[in-house]
């Protein structure tokens, strides 16, 4: 288990090698990247079994304060800030720890990354910069794994930023397209705003804790070193970072645009892994959030709920298949946040995983569609089930899973969340959460049926199924999307269910509240039937509904004008201020403040030179005046 640090290191090592000599490697470096992540996947199992075999007494392992989970911690010195031994100096470490959340996330990331990279072999085939693509992928995987493993906020931040950059580079992978270029920039800057909060929060914790260690912070909360104000402020600041990364309102605007990147990238980074880093962060820092009456968690819950609801409505009207999925991602991230905010720790992690597999599947499925048809507007698609059966099936599985069709993974995880919300928060929350769940099923159904059912457009008749290198990962993911939910059950034997693995404070078994389960199942099935009728049968027309809600529809179709507000802020506030500063610098500071005195001196010189008139007598006069003056002063100054 002490070798778990190798999980990211494989990929870290692969990245520069691919950049430097990728051209000469097999598959232009793709093979190396896949091998690295595959090795990571293997080591994930080693770590898993290592952890399972460890106990409180094992070296480096202990029951962590705050999470009450068995945690194994390893670290090495990175660098010293300040002279070691002197007060006020800080020793920074490379360190990782392994606890249940880490292991769960490791599994998700290594597996999905592996799938996506294999899939990319097919999807990106023939791209001239494929080595670059895989290098960044490797770097991303490595950084993401580092976030998960990190035992200190600092290292977490380091990796956090690195995944941001990888996201930037991959969104802008086709940088010749202005849209991609702008989307990449937007993604980076918007998340960066959140990162300001994150960094300040980390520094704030450090300032009061004296260390960047995550468990150290928990300990400080436990023993009261961290005051209530600091804890709440730090939690909220950390949550700010999480909001940026996990695209919570109002920072959600970058994620739909990020779909300009290659679809596998969307699947990996913008659906399954990176965007859940925010959720992960909140989960990781949960002891901070729930300390002192859990005030920050209420904020988390509200933000999560609002995000989930708002973006679900947008997803319902979006027309681009990837954007539907993107908004759905945001919505589900919101649900996870809501769950965390409602003390549904386990549920959130569970949904994170289930959603990760399902959403990766959906994206890769849509990628398969896009790869084959080179279209992504659902209005231009339809009836693809006839030409792309495998894709249709796996996409349907993913959609059904995410839509909450019973026994699929999504059903269980969503149910867990709803249950947590109904327990943990005010009834208002559960009402809106249920609405979100309904909407979720609706847009999933819409995406599924509008794309794969209905009439096959003429020009798509010659479309072919994607190659196996793409469909095999799809199928593997589909298996998880179907069956993953079962791990939440209370199985007999050693594994008592997910609630005994990932938990907050104390393990708990599988719970099922019948009314919620039945209600959500009915809603999900109903939604799918409804969309089936609309898009496959065409027996229900939406035209009258559209007309009736035209005004609301316009607002929703314009994504609640978030982009416009941002644009306005940038154009009218940021750029104006920047231009003003630029102008101020040139006109006031430079031309007035700097050139001004210089000009005054020169002007003084030009004027002053007139005193040398060229007339002898004025020279003599000056001398006389000088003489008189000197005589008087000499006299006066002599006592």
């Amino acid at each position, binding site marked *: 288990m002490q070798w778990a640090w190798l999980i990211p290191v494989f990929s870290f090592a692969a990245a520069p090698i691919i950049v430097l000599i990728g051209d000469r490697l097999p598959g232009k470096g793709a093979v190396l990247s896949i091998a690295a992540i595959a090795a990571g996947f293997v080591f994930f199992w080693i770590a898993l079994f290592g952890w399972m075999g460890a106990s409180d007494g094992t070296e480096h392992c202990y029951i962590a304060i705050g999470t009450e989970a068995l945690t194994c911690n390893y670290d090495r010195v990175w660098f010293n800030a300040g002279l070691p031994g002197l007060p006020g100096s800080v020793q920074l470490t490379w360190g990782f720890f392994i606890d249940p959340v880490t292991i769960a996330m490791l599994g998700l990331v290594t597996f999905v990354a592996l799938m996506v990279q294999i899939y990319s072999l097919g999807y990106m085939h023939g791209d001239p910069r494929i080595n670059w693509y895989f290098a960044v992928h490797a770097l991303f995987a490595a950084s993401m794994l580092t976030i998960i493993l990190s035992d200190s906020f600092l290292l977490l931040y380091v990796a956090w930023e690195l995944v941001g950059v990888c996201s930037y580079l991959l969104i802008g992978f086709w940088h010749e397209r202005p849209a991609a270029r702008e989307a990449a920039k937007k993604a980076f800057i918007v998340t960066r705003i959140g990162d300001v909060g994150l960094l300040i929060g980390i520094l704030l914790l450090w300032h009061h804790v004296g260390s960047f260690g995550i468990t150290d912070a928990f300990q400080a909360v436990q023993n009261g070193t961290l005051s209530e104000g600091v804890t709440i402020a730090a939690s909220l600041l950390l949550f700010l970072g999480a909001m940026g990364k996990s695209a919570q309102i109002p920072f959600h605007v970058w994620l739909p645009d990020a779909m300009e990147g290659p679809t596998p990238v969307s699947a990996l980074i913008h659906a399954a892994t990176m965007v859940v880093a925010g959720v992960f962060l909140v989960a990781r820092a949960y002891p901070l959030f729930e300390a002192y009456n859990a005030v920050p968690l209420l904020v988390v819950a509200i933000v999560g709920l609002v995000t989930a609801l708002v973006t679900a409505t947008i997803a319902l009207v979006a027309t681009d298949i990837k954007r539907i999925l993107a908004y759905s991602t945001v919505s589900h991230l919101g649900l996870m946040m809501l769950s965390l905010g409602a003390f549904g720790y386990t549920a959130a992690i569970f949904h994170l995983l289930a959603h990760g597999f399902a959403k990766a599947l959906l994206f890769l499925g849509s990628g398969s569609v896009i790869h084959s048809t080179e279209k992504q507007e659902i209005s231009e698609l339809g009836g693809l089930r006839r030409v792309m059966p495998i894709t249709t099936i796996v996409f349907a599985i993913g959609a059904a899973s995410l839509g909450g069709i019973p026994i699929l993974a999504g059903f269980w995880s969503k149910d867990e969340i709803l249950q947590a919300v109904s327990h943990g928060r005010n009834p208002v929350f559960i009402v809106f959460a249920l609405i979100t769940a309904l909407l979720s099923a609706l847009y999933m159904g819409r995406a599924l049926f509008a794309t794969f059912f209905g009439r096959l457009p003429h020009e798509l008749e010659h479309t072919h199924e994607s190659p196996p290198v793409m469909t095999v990962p799809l199928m593997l993911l589909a298996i998880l999307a179907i069956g993953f939910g079962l791990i939440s059950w209370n199985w007999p034997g050693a594994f008592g269910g997910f609630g005994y693995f990932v938990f907050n404070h104390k393990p708990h078994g599988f719970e099922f509240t019948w009314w919620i389960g039945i209600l959500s199942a009915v809603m999900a099935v109903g939604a799918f039937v409804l969309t089936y009728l609309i898009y496959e049968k065409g027996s229900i027309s939406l035209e009258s509904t559209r007309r009736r809600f035209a005004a609301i529809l316009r607002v929703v179709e314009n994504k609640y004008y978030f982009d416009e507000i941002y644009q306005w802020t940038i154009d009218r506030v940021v750029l104006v201020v920047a231009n003003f500063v630029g102008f101020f610098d040139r006109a006031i500071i430079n031309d007035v403040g700097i050139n001004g005195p*210089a000009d005054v*001196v*020169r002007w*003084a*010189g*030009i004027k*002053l*030179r007139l*005193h*040398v008139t*060229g007339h*002898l007598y*004025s*020279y*003599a006069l*000056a*001398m006389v*005046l*000088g*003489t008189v*003056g*000197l*005589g008087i*002063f*000499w*006299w006066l*100054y*002599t*006592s």
Partner: protein
Amino acid sequence: MSLTSNLDLLTPEFALAGLAFLVFAADLVLPEGRKNLLGWFSIAGLLALIAVSVIMLWGVEETLYNGLLAVDDFSLWFKVLFMGIGVFIILSSMDFVTENLEHKGEFYGIVLFSILGMNIMAQSRELLTAYIALELLSFSLYVLAAYARDSAKSNEGGLKYIIIGAFSSAILLYGVSMVYAVLGVTKFEAIAAGLATASEVSPSLWVGVAFILVGLGFKVAAVPFHMWAPDVYEGAPYPITAYLSIGSKAAAFALVLRLAAEGFVPVGDRWEQWQLILAVLAALSMLVGNLVALAQRNLKRLMAYSSIGHSGFILAGVAALSLDSNLPSNGVMLYLVGYSVTNFVVFGGLISFFNMTGKEMMSDLAGLGGTQPFLAASIAIGMFSLAGLPIFAGFAIKFYLFTAVADEGFLWLAGLAVFFSLVSLYYYLQVIRQMYIQPAEGEPAFGHGYGYEHIDAAHDDEEHDEDEHQQPARRYGAAMIETYPALGRRPSITILAVLGAGLVAVFWIGIYPSPLLDTIDAASRAILG
């Protein structure tokens, strides 16, 4: 002891006078066109005299003629300096004299007389002796300033110089008469004793001292007695401009130093009161000299104002003189040497340029960096040095002097001096800019034209690049050579000698002035004890 028992100590002076007479005499027999020999002869004589003086007078400390003259390290030091200046001046004027002046022979003789005057100024310890020596120098300079008889500017400069000079002598003498009337003495030491003990004394004594300072202030071109300087500098033949700004100033400061150190500084409290007045004069000189220089376009005039500014700096050192410390007087002397050698470098270059083109405006220098790299580099180094930038003499001397000034409690004055050094940098840089950056007549500037207006031309960059990289650009300032063929030739050997020696000195003083300072310290001890 007879008054003249140690008359041999004046051998250098007698020999110098003899040398001058020899030059005058030889002038009569030498044919026109060989007059340069007189210059070489004078140089040889001066060099020999430097050697003789150093060998004979090193460490000697005696007075002659009842204390009218002093033969000490101070006077020796200045003598060597003055004769060195003489060597340089003659070297840098030989071409000029040959080409531009009549009466070539007498020129050197008069220069030698002026050096004699300076030497005696440095030695004199009595007002009248100092005055007469000063007049010997002044008369020589009047003549030399008006030497270019056919030049209206030279005439005008000479006339202004002699009239204002005579006027200032009258004021100075009136001061002498007042001091004499009150104290009954004219020797510096006796004046000091008189001033120190005077109480309930006629204030005409103080006014008299002020009048004496007016006369000396005129000589060093301190504001407000400076206005003659630009005109005379501009009118005078080029080497004489150099001589005025170097020799005349150094001699005047030698006298001021000795007068102040022996006559005023020992007075104690009163000197401390007077220091402030001198400091104000110094500040005024820096201000006016450096500000007005900003607006100058004529190189000689520029150098005139610059020399006024430098007078201010040196005067600051004089104002800081004190019995406690040799630093201010060391600083003044070091500054004088550094300033002299630097100015020789600058003027050597400018004179050579004038010999080649007959131009003396700043704008005429455009392209010199390309046509005459060595001249341009010398002028540039000189300018940087004058501005007080390091590696060159200017930095070390300014640093030393200003430190001394600050150390004596005139931090504000030192700060002002430092500030005006900055102002001066601007106009010195203007000259450098003309030589290196400004396009010469009829050619585009290097580096222009890659601006935004050339965006459309970006597609033919390749050709551009070809042009630039393959064919070496036409030599900078090449058009100037066509106008002035002399610019294409090497500067003459005399100028090269001046520049070479000057540059060595500039770097030496700038990097390691310590040995020089040892001699200066000895000189300071001679006057300050």
